[in-house]
């Protein structure tokens, strides 16, 4: 019972984090609201993809081989990582100037293109964990012998409700603290998550044998922080922590943060230059 509730919450929370943060961003400006249909479109596409993937995992359908699944998972994680970074940079760069640009009309296509990126990102975020939730719920409910399947289904619904509550708290957070601080905080959360996605994607590529490990592992920090339970597991899922990392993963994660740092620095300068003639209003 509690296990069902907990697992559904945990599986939904990553997707809700992405969807929730993007939703808060889009809602903050009237221009951003034009992106909302793409957000919901992404959620719908993600649910569809989650169902397809769930059929593979359940062994009902075999449109993806085992190795195909590995490639697909790697592709989803790496694409999501790139899209998160692109979205954060885009939001930073255009957050204040979006209105002018949309009115200008000339760069409408650029904005339009970004909405498609948003749709794909949301779809991946929902599909990744969604497929596992579907399998878990379907299997648990259909296998229920001792407990009433209705009770388990209810626990699943409750888990999702708790996840929605998390989503709502995030929205509330957007109102309680200043917009600038909320933006900074969620930006950091998303970039950490993108780092975790990168490491996860690399793990798949290493498993496939297409990436060398170089040195495996570089170090063993399991005595300090185990990555399989508790805080270590949360850090693994949301920041890419590994107790036995391969050198490849360490180098890629370091490169990732360097690139992100350089991109954000450049964007900050550009935004500062753009904001100078007209002081910011919010």
């Amino acid at each position, binding site marked *: 019972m509690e*296990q069902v509730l907990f*697992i559904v919450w945990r599986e939904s929370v990553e997707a809700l984090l992405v969807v929730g943060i993007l939703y808060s961003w889009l809602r903050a400006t009237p221009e951003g609201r034009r992106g909302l249909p793409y957000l919901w479109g992404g959620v719908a596409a993600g649910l569809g993809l989650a169902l397809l993937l769930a059929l593979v*995992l*359940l*062994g*009902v359908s075999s449109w*993806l*081989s*085992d*190795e*195909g*699944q*590995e*490639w*697909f998972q*790697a*592709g*989803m994680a790496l*694409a999501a990582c*790139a*899209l998160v970074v692109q979205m954060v940079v885009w939001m930073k760069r255009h957050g204040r100037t979006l209105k002018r640009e949309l009115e200008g009309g000339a760069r409408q296509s650029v904005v339009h*293109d970004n909405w*498609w*990126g948003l*749709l*794909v990102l949301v779809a991946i975020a929902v599909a990744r964990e969604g*497929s*596992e939730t579907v*399998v*878990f719920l*379907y*299997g*648990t409910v*259909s*296998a229920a*012998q001792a407990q009433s399947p209705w009770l388990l289904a209810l626990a699943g619904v409750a888990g999702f409700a708790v996840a929605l509550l998390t989503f709502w708290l995030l929205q509330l957070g957007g109102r309680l603290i200043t917009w600038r601080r909320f933006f900074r905080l969620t930006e950091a959360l998303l970039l950490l998550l993108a780092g975790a996605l990168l490491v996860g994607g690399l*793990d*798949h590529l*290493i*498993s*496939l*044998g297409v990436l060398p*490990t170089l040195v*495996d*592992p570089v170090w063993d920090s*399991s005595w300090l922080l185990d*990555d*399989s339970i508790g805080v270590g*597991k949360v850090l*693994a899922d949301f920041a890419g922590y*590994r*107790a*036995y990392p391969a050198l490849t993963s360490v180098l890629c994660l370091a490169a990732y943060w360097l690139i992100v740092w350089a991109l954000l620095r450049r964007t900050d300068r550009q935004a500062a230059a753009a904001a100078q003639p007209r002081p910011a209003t919010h």
Partner: protein
Amino acid sequence: MRARALLAALLLAGAAGAARAADLPTFTLTFKPDGTFEPARLEVPAGRFKIALINDSSEPVEFESIPLRKEKVLGPGVKSFVVITISRPGEYPFFDDFHQQVRGTLVVKPQE
């Protein structure tokens, strides 16, 4: 456009993955109906190897191990496999993420 091209590439990459993992040393790990792993301690040689996963239970399971870089969901009755590369001998924990009390250990032996 870029985003749509990315999605197309993603689907292609998924479809292109044909079965390639053939001649690897293979070991079997079964998720039993009573909620245990068979065997609970799996011994393998260091290097690259394959673990055939069999879900004999009536519930979905998820073979998970962050140190082994693996996460694999199996529906009830589903068979699958994971290919793992571990060069450092030692003990690596794995567990069923859908039933977290179900735990096992992979013992990687030094290669002669």
